Structure formats: structure tokens, C-alpha cells
């Protein structure tokens, strides 16, 4: 579980991201954070991760999280194999048992002994996901996990995230892909106007979900304009 209590964060006086925000991200669930570009979704994940420090309030975490960035920083002149080995040893963690299967499923097996500099953007993203997933954490913070993946890998990752939830992992995902959010989310968090608001994903159809999300973002935007 992650709990935000009256959390405020600003980069500068003119750039306030969160203002006394409260939210509870439940354990063993997939929570998808939705919001407009530049609203602060990545900042929110960075605050939960601890990379950024909030100005006010408290963030309580039961588990140590791992953050997978949308633009992962990888060591370009190591091979995929070497990169995983390095991160494993630096993190001093036990890897998952089925790592080779995961590599196979993500279609990375022929690329693991090539330099990362030769990888395409999608492959780099897959490797970053693979590395993080193999480290066996309880809480995963994932920024745009499927944006650069091919359709096959997207389908695989959606299934894999569902499996992780079944295996009692907690995932907080930030995305703009509404279909992915609909398919994965147990709960959605609408981030707008420096506040966070949570809803259950109990929508019957995707269209219903989509309409709700777009309307929520628009309503909050309108309310901001009339203030």
C-alpha cells in the first residue's frame, strides 16, 4: 500500500504539481493514473519512488518500489545479458526463476548478446521492463509501459501484468492508452488540477470507460477555468 497524506510538491512558485493531495494506492492491485500531458504523472511516480522529495505532507510506503521510466537510461555499451547481470548484482537481489522464459516471450533472446546501442527504442523498453520485472519487487511504478512495444509484445505484457497482480504484486501505471488502462486497471486515478481522485474500474464497456475518463478530465479542466 502507498498512502499520500496532504502531499504538496512544486518545482517553482509558478509550477505547482500537487497541493495537499491525498490518495491511497491499494495493495495487490493495478492502479492506472490518467491525466493530461505535463500535468505531473511522472512527477507523482518519482515522488512515490523517492527520486523527488515532496515539499510538504507524508508518503507512506509498505514496500520498496521500483520505477520503470518511459525513457529508460541504459548502458549502451553493455550487452543485454551484461546489463541484467549488472543491475542484479548492484541491487543485490534474487532474480525470478523464469527469466529465460520471459526473455523468450519478449522475443529478446537473439539480442541479449548484442550491444544495447544497437537496440531499437522498443527493444530498449522491453529490456528495461525485463530487468525490472526480473528483480522480484512487490511494488512497481511504471511510466507508459507499452508505448513503444509492438502489438504482440503489448498483448504479452498486458497478460504479464495481470499475472503479476495474481501473484500479489502491486502496480501503479501511468499511461495515455485508454484501452490499456481499461483492460488492466482495478482502479483509476484521475490527476487534474493538482489533485488526485480515485474511481473503481467497474465500467461495463470500453466506450463507457472512455467517455467517463474524457468527461472527468474535461469537467475538471472547465472547473479550473471557471475558478
Amino acid at each position: 500500500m502507498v498512502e499520500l497524506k496532504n502531499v504538496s510538491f512544486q518545482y517553482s512558485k509558478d509550477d505547482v504539481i500537487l497541493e495537499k493531495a491525498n490518495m491511497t494506492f491499494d495493495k495487490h492491485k493495478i492502479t492506472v493514473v490518467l491525466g493530461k500531458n505535463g500535468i505531473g504523472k511522472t512527477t507523482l511516480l518519482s515522488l512515490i519512488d523517492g527520486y523527488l522529495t515532496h515539499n510538504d505532507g507524508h508518503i507512506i510506503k509498505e514496500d520498496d518500489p521500483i520505477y520503470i521510466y518511459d525513457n529508460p537510461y541504459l548502458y549502451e555499451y553493455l550487452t543485454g545479458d551484461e546489463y541484467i547481470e549488472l543491475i542484479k548484482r548492484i541491487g543485490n537481489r534474487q532474480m525470478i526463476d523464469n527469466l529465460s522464459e520471459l526473455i523468450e516471450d519478449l522475443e529478446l533472446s537473439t539480442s541479449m548478446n548484442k550491444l544495447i546501442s544497437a537496440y531499437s527504442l522498443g527493444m530498449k523498453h522491453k529490456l528495461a521492463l525485463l530487468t525490472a520485472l526480473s528483480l522480484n519487487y512487490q511494488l512497481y511504478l511504471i511510466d507508459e509501459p507499452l508505448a513503444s512495444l509492438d502489438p504482440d509484445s503489448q498483448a504479452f505484457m498486458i497478460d504479464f501484468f495481470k499475472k503479476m497482480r495474481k501473484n500479489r504484486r502491486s502496480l501503479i501505471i501511468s499511461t495515455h492508452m485508454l484501452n490499456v488502462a481499461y483492460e488492466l486497471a482495478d482502479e483509476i486515478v484521475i490527476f487534474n488540477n493538482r489533485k488526485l481522485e480515485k474511481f473503481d474500474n467497474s465500467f461495463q464497456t470500453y466506450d463507457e470507460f472512455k467517455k467517463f475518463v474524457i468527461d472527468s478530465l474535461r469537467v475538471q479542466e472547465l472547473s479550473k477555468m471557471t475558478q
Partner: protein
Amino acid sequence: MQNFNLFFYYKNRSKIRNSYFLESFSAKLKDFILLHYREYNYIWIDQLIRIAKFLVFSLIYLIIILSVNFNHDSLHTIGYSIFAFIGFFIALVCLSYNKESLKDVEHDHYFRMLSTNRNELLKEIILRRINYGFLNWMIPMIFPLFLFAAILTNFYLIVQYIVLFSLYYLFLFIIVFSTQKLLFKYLKKTVIISDILIYVFSILIVIFPILLQILILVTAELFADYTGNLFIYTSLSVLIIFLLWSLKKYIYKETFNYSITNTLLVASKKNYKGNKIKEPPFFVGMFYSKDDFSNLILTKDLLSFYRKDKRETHSLIFVSLMSLVYSGFLISALQSGDPIKTVIPIDNILLSIIMIFFIITHYRYKEINWYSSEGVNLELFRRLKHQVMSLYKSKIKLNAIILLPMILFYALSPIFFIMTYNDTAIIYAFTRMIFIITYAIVILEYPLINDAKKTILTKYKDLLFMSAGDLIMFVFFIQGMGLSILLTFMTESSYLSDYSYIYWVFIGLIFMVMISIKIRFLYIRRSFKQVEV
């Protein structure tokens, strides 16, 4: 033909932004130039900067020459050694960038948009790289010295120097372009052939001034009289220049008749055997300490450094060997019975050049070798926050492994001074040895601690002592000019003990400065540990 003006304008603009030469004058001057640096005037501003560089180096050499009363013939020796050193460095940089920077070009948006004109852009990039090396370094740093040497000794040497520069340029052009052609042509079949040729070419550049000297000697042997000698030398040179010029035109036309993008992609798809993080190479293991985290980072960095550009690594080894060659100049000067007072300025000028290259190389590798290069990396970042000192130490070790050999060969060379059986030479040699090693260790850590401090302790915004550019000037003035000017106050005695008073005070002062900087480093390191807690 496509005009790539805008592409080069932006490339040059970033060079201005990172220019240590301008920074060493004033950061405001750099900002001023950047403000007025436009697409329509950038070529002119570049030329002005080159002229300024030429004038600054002319002034420095002039002060040294006027202040030190040594045999002017030595100027030629110094000139040739600096020529060989810088020439070799430029050639290696051109060669080493050939493959690697083109790989970067592959990811450049502009390059991707070019479609059919990519080969033309690559040709232009390589051509400009050679020209920049020649115009920004070779001519401003060496030609003034040769000019003074010729004025003070023999005017006919001007012809020799012009020939030397022209031949060097043509030679470099042909080597770089033909290497490029070989790299792309044989990449799929065998890389070894092109690699061997690259090293043969590199060595040729080192012996190039020697070959010219042989040419001069041969003509001098054949024709005893001065006019005949000059005539034959000039005719032969013009003939060689003409032949090389024709070859240059042919090679420029013939280079890049390949699909560059495909070739670059093939190069990047190479498979690597084994997991070197799991089983590190023996060379890397030699530098391991008890700290596993530090060892891992060191392995990762050394592997990345070597793989990023193998030739860059080899160029460092060559540069280190060059400093060994410099030692040869010193030893031969001592053996030929030159008084110690003549040897010291030569020594200090050579040392200044080595130090400047040492610092420049240090800054060139900052994207790979410095603390801030680590960036944000998943699990690693989490550990970095807790293991600041481990990471810092591994970076120091990495930079020491890569950079110190360049200086240590030269620093240790005075061991050969024992051969002279001259007490003064031996005292000078050992003082200098300790002094240079202290100096090198301090300068090695200087940019690293500054960078780490800015990265880790964000609340500190002040500079450590001075900017990078000031540091370069400090090295040049104190080490090169300071000591040389000081020597003018010395007596004509060949025994160091006779004029040791000022000399030792000077050495002592610099040593104290270095020690005080080192103490400050220790204090800063302690602040890193506080963050760790």
C-alpha cells in the same frame, strides 16, 4: 549539391558553447559570442577565434623566447616535438572518430531526413573534421613557434615548415579518407585488414616529421651548397605535394560508394561472446578492490569505454608512448652535454603540452567517465544514493587508469638522468618526478570532485577554485611560463645548487598549493560521506 550550412552551424555552435579556449578568457565573452553567433556570420566568427588563438599562442611563445636565454636552435627541436605530438593526436582523433561519430550521425534526425544525400554529408563531416583539427590546433599552436624559430635562426626554414604543414595536411586527408573507405568496404568481410592498416597509418604519422628530416638530410648530402640544397628540397617537395594532391582528389571522389546506413547497421549488430560483467577480463580484475559495488561500476565503465571506441583507447596508449618519446628528447639533450638551464625550459614546455592534453582529454571523456555521467538508472540510482563514496572512488580509479599513463611515462623518465652522472641533473630529475606526480594526481581529481560536488550536493553552487579553462591556463602559465621566466633570474652556473634559492622557493610554493588543494578535496569528500549517512 546540397548545402549543409545549417547542420554545421549548429554543430559549431555547440563547439563554441564547450570551448575551453573562450572560457579561459571569460564566460561573459563566450556568452557574447554565442548571442551573436548566427547562421550568416558563423564562418567569420570561427575565423576570428582561430586568429585570436594564433595570436595568443604567438604571444606566449614570444614571452618564453624573450625571457629564456637559451640556444635558439632548440626551438626547432621543441617545434618538431610539439608538431609530432599534436599532429599525432589530431590524426588519431580524426581516425578514431571516423567510425564512432558516424554511428552517432546515424541517429541524427537531419541525417535521417537526407535520404540520398547522406554520403555527401558524411564526406563533408570528415573533411571539416580534418580542417578543424588543422586550423584550430595545428596552425595556432605550432606555426608561431616555427615562425619564431625561423626568424631567429634561418629564414630558409620557412620553406621547410610550409612544406611540412602542406604534406601533413595532404597525408592526413588521404589517410583519414582511405581508412574510411577501407572500413566500409571490408567491414563485412574482414575488419582485421582495415584495422591493421589504420595502425600502420597512425604510426606513419608519428614518423612523418622524421621522414621529412631524412629528406632534408639526403638533399643536404647530395648538394653541399645552400642554394642547390634549397632548390632540390623545394622541387622534391612540390613534386610530392602535387602527387599527394592528385591522390587526394581521387580518394575524395571515390570514398563512400556504399550504402552507409546499411554498413553502419551491420557494424552495430555484432554479437559479443560471454558475459563480461560475470567474468571480467584479467586487465580489469587487476584494479579490483574489496568494494564489490565499486568493482562492478569500474568493470562496466572500462568495458563501455573500450567498446565505445576501441581506437580511442589505443590512441591513449599511443599518446602515453609519445610522452615516452618526449623523454627521449630530454635524455638526448642531457647526454649531448646541454647545460641544465637549457634542458629545464624544454622540459617544462613539453610538460605543459602534455598537461594541456591531459586536461583536454579528461574533459572530452566527461560523458563517460565522470560522476554525473551515471544519470538515472533504475535499481542503480537507488544504490548510488547510498554509496556515493564507492561510486566516486571507482570514477577516480577509472580516470586514473585511462589518463595517468599519459603523464607517468614522462614523469618517470628522469630515472634516465642518472646516466648523466650529473648531481644537478639527478636532483632536478627527482624533484620534478615527485612534483609532476603530485601535480597529476591533483589535476586528475580536480574536475571529478567539482563534478561530483555539483551532482551530489546541489545546494553548493560555487566553483571549487576556478573554471576548467582557468585551470588549463594555470597549468600552462605556472608550469610552462612561470618556471621559464623564473630561470631568467638564475645565474649562468650549470649547478643547480648555485641558484637553488629562488627555484626551491617556487617549487615549494606550488607544492604547498597542491597540498592545500588536496586537503580541500578531503573536506569535500567528507561532505559526500555525510550525504551517505
